[in-house]
């Protein structure tokens, strides 16, 4: 699993302008956010990210490791992106937050709005986890426990 993810991550896809580092892992897009996220940069970044947001069930990971400065326009952009992907039944996750990005998101009270991960790989992997809604609501809570016990018995 880890290998598969990392192999896919190694595939580097150049953007139209070649300004932003973008990596793909199957349908999951990992995109590096620029160092300074001011109004101008937000505009440029959105030109790259915009088409991805309009795809069906977009699954995006934003790598914030390079972020040194972020204006309120940058935070608004992140919220806008999240809103757009959720509308299309997708998800947006933040990964490898720099201390600066972390402080700014906390300052602006949005740090809890996003799902954040230490590394991009972790964020990519989280997309592959079984979503909660996939678990049948009709199954009793103890069903999994008994299933597991059965597996243990068989193994022994």
């Amino acid at each position, binding site marked *: 699993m880890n290998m598969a993810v990392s192999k896919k991550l190694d595939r580097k896809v150049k953007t139209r302008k070649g300004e932003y580092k973008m990596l793909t892992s199957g349908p999951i897009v990992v995109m590096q956010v620029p160092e300074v996220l*001011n109004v101008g940069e937000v505009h440029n970044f959105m030109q790259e990210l915009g088409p991805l947001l309009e795809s069906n069930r977009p699954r995006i990971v934003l790598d914030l490791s390079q972020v*040194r*400065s972020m*204006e*309120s*326009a940058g935070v608004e952009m992140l919220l806008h992106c999240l809103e757009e992907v959720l509308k299309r039944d997708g998800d947006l996750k933040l990964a490898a937050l720099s*201390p*600066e990005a*972390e*402080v*700014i998101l*906390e*300052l*602006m*009270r949005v740090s809890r709005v996003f799902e954040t991960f230490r590394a991009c790989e972790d964020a990519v992997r989280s997309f592959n986890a079984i979503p909660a809604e996939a678990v049948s609501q009709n199954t009793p809570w103890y069903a999994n426990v008994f299933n597991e016990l059965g597996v243990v018995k068989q193994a022994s």
Partner: protein
Amino acid sequence: MLGAIIITSDQSRRVRGGTFVSAEGSAQTPLAAVEVLGKPPVTRLAEALWEVCDLVSVIVCPGRHVGAHSRSSLPDLADECFANYIGKGCDAVLIARCGAYFELDISNMLAFHQEQRLECTRAFVDDGPLDVWIVDPSVVPSYSWAFSSSACARTAVYRSQAYANRLQSASDFRRLVLDGFHSRCLLRPEGAEIKPGIWVCEGAQIERSARIVAPAFLGRNAQISEECLITRGSNVESNSHIDFGTAVENSSILPNTYVGIGLDLSHSIVNGRNLFNFQHNVSLEITDPVVLRETTARGRGRQSSADIESGMAVSSVE
């Protein structure tokens, strides 16, 4: 007769420069000149010295660390002041290069100096020397000579258990604020204690729906807008404005700072556009004026060296 010379830096220029809120605390960090609970430590020192000294002079060095003599004019001015004290018949001269906050018993140090019969006496606290000397002007010919190697060889060491905070980093600054709140030192917040643990200075405005949780300090003309929360030992210094709905927790807002709407400011020191966060140990400049910015002073205006009480000689190095 005891004379005192305090050498400090000009806070107003430093605040505009915005360089002093740094992770490391460098030579560019004149935290002793920054307001702590209503008054800069250097002003508090000058007031304390005024109680025990007959003459007090404050030399203000603009835009420079007080320990660094990069221009010749500072020693010249100090020499002039020193010569003036000798002319007026001072038996001893206290020299304090104010980079730290300390609570030395000056009378006791003077008595120790007179017992030792040496040219110089330097104050030491638990973690090392302070930039505080008492010199004998009958033996020491000038201010500059007091710091020469020949003078150092004949310096008595005055050891004290007194409270001292070196103010070398933003963390030291924050520790001094909390020590002041919790009476771990003699530094008391300015203004009136309107409720236990809440001090408010003249001209401060607190909207009805704002919540202030003790211990907290609001400086002169500070403005706390509606739905704000000031808590966990936070201090909002003079002319600062916390706008609607913002929570300030375990933080210091330095003078003339605007903090925008609906923010969550915790474990930080904010000075204009500059923010230092302790939890993440990161210093950053917020360029967005709706989030953080410097304010223009209201009322009495910016705190400056001119606030040092009248009656003391204040000289500026140009």
